């Protein structure tokens, strides 16, 4: 049927598209509005109420305006989580995953295919592993009598206790391990697009490898970099399971990023309105980060 209409259309000018032709889409639209837009709007509304599962705000829900937000800005626990979220996102996402992913992509470019295959399998394997499993693997690796300390013991080196002394760094490492594959794959694909002639002519002009990277490769990769950075930032902001399994946000909230803080408020204390407000703030942080990246992109890249 499709072929018939297209041949007929090519013969004569396109008829005016009528609304009625969109009728088959209607059920989809209704369902989307009902099950996607509805809950989204409801949760935005919740953020401005005192809806709770327990105590005050459970017997009757009332509209409280910006109270949840002012309460968040007045609470030290919120700022603690905010700071930790920024640290976690910068260390594990923006710096760790991007730099390591770029390094791997560059190194694998000239590597023999069997090295590419093995490295690719290992890195992508870490990415495929479910978040909870990755969290548990890292917990068993870093914990007091975990494998890392056993290795250090064998080498007669002092043992570590990062899960307790530097929990946010420990979960950042785990997240770098888990998420590097994405950056590596993105950059590998982008590097494959760069024609070798460019590099060769630069080499003939006498540019060393570092100069070639800075002046040729990096500018050509800028678009891929920005896309990868934006996606990584948004993913890292919302990491929950990995941290929950490894440290539960502890000890005493030293690794409680905003998603964990939100979970504690909404589901451990039943403060649904306040928890939803935190979720909106998290969404806002993601939005600001995305806008910032878009601003950094030069105009010619946005076409």
């Amino acid at each position, binding site marked *: 049927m499709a072929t018939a209409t297209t041949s007929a259309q090519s013969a004569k000018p396109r008829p005016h598209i009528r609304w009625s032709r969109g009728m088959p889409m209607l059920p989809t639209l209704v369902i989307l509005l009902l099950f996607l837009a509805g809950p989204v709007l409801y949760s935005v509304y919740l953020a401005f109420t005192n809806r709770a599962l*327990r105590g005050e705000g459970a*017997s009757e829900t009332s509209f409280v305006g910006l109270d949840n937000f002012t309460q968040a800005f007045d609470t030290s626990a919120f700022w603690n989580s905010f700071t930790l979220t920024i640290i976690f996102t910068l260390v594990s996402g923006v710096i760790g995953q991007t730099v390591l992913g770029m390094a791997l992509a560059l190194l694998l470019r000239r590597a023999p295919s069997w090295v590419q295959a093995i490295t690719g399998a290992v890195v992508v394997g870490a990415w495929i592993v479910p978040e909870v499993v990755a969290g548990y693997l890292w917990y068993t690796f870093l*914990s*007091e009598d975990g494998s890392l300390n056993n290795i250090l013991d064998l080498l007669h080196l002092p043992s570590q206790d990062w899960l307790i002394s530097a929990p946010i760094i420990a979960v950042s490492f785990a997240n770098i391990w888990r998420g590097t594959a994405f950056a590596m794959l993105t950059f590998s694909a982008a590097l494959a697009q760069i024609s070798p002639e460019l590099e060769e002519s630069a080499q003939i002009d006498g540019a060393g490898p570092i100069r070639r990277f800075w002046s040729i490769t990096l500018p050509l990769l800028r678009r891929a970099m920005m896309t990868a950075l934006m996606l990584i930032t948004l993913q890292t902001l919302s990491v929950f399971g990995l941290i929950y399994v490894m440290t*539960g946000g*502890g000890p*005493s909230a030293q690794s409680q990023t905003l998603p964990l803080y939100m979970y504690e408020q909404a*589901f451990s204390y039943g403060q649904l309105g306040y928890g939803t407000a935190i979720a909106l703030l998290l969404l806002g942080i993601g939005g600001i980060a995305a806008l910032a990246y878009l601003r950094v992109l030069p105009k010619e890249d946005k076409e």
Partner: protein
Amino acid sequence: MPDVSRRSVLRFVGGAVAVAPLTACGSDHANTLRISYQQFGSGRVMEAYIKQAAADFSKNRPGTAVELVPLVAAENDYFTKNELMMSSSRTACDLVYEDTFILESDVAAGYLRPIDEYISKWPEWKRYHAVTREAVKAEDGKTYGVPIATDTRGIWYHSEVLEKAGIKAPWQPKTWDDLLEAARTIKRELPGVIPLNIYASKASGEKTSMQGFEMLLYGTDSTLYDEDQKKWVIGSQGFRDSLQFIRTVYSEKLGPPLSSALDPNLAETAQNGWFPKGEMAMMIDGSWISRAWLDDGPGKWPKATEVVKLATMPTQRGQGAGITTLAGGHSWAFPAKAQQHDLAFEFVRHLCSLKNLSEVTINDRNVTTRTDIAELPAYKNSSTFLPFFTNLVKDATYRPALAPYPQISTAIQVACEQVMTGSRSPAQAARAYDNAVIEIVGRDHTTKEA
């Protein structure tokens, strides 16, 4: 329909059966009673108890059915699921299993209805210990639940280990100093043995608040919540002293190593690892932990009944009654939005008949809330440790489990963890707690200790 294969019919029926449990409480069947309870881990005692009672109950009442709604969840998630169901008349069960920890919060939220009119006509009610009857009363003075079982707390000690350190059983500290002195003696005489476990990390959650901190605080002259003024107490000497006790235990290395103390699995490690192996001498812990040492438990330990002994937790300077114990437990409660309150209470009377309740209490090795069950030989002989904990019930303190309690409890855990790790002094941690409480309940609901 001869052309329909038997298999497809079976498949359809199978599908219907699989879907049936998903439709939770709240269909409009008159005379079907729905009852929700927590199903966590592998224990099936509760389920068997309700099923058995339900079968008898419907037998005597033709046309009445009881539907079980197990909520498979760990503690916090169970509270949440239960509250979500109670918040609508379409999903509210007729009877729910409520932890005393959350009972008053749920009353304040309007989820539950008072049952005074029913218990006034129920002769068995006076058999419940006065403290357990108080525990199911809310701020408004009305009763909201029928206690099923309770639990109390004390000091479990490994008599062989204490013996080696030169402390003869039966041992009973009279003050906090006696307890610390015993711990120091063990440390001195038996290097490598952890003298005492007292929960003090945020990861241990409510264990830290109840088995740890509150066992200390309620043995001082201060309290957590002023019942007369209906306000949360801040700036109290007892609070600082309790934190100081925890600080002393961990700074003198009388407790577990910090890494283990901060681990969420500390309880299992201590109860089923160190303690049975004789690597830990004393634990301030709850009445239920001996279940793990039974033949079908995760930490099977046949010698437990011979070597494990119990001491009561002393008050700070031996003041007052000289002992402190906190009690918790569960009760049957009645969602306000359910339809069949009369029938639900009928069923509770049946569930709590002497025969039914004593059986489940004995099978589950719980501490009973009732004087008549406490007297039964079958109950007394069901466990070596049970009589000790049953005796504590009459003097037990219940937590001020009001709506803000879960958050205040977390603030307590944070304070304990700060002094345990030494990141703050007891005075600093207590001040941080005071600020946290003001943040949670508002300054008007706090009172400074004179």
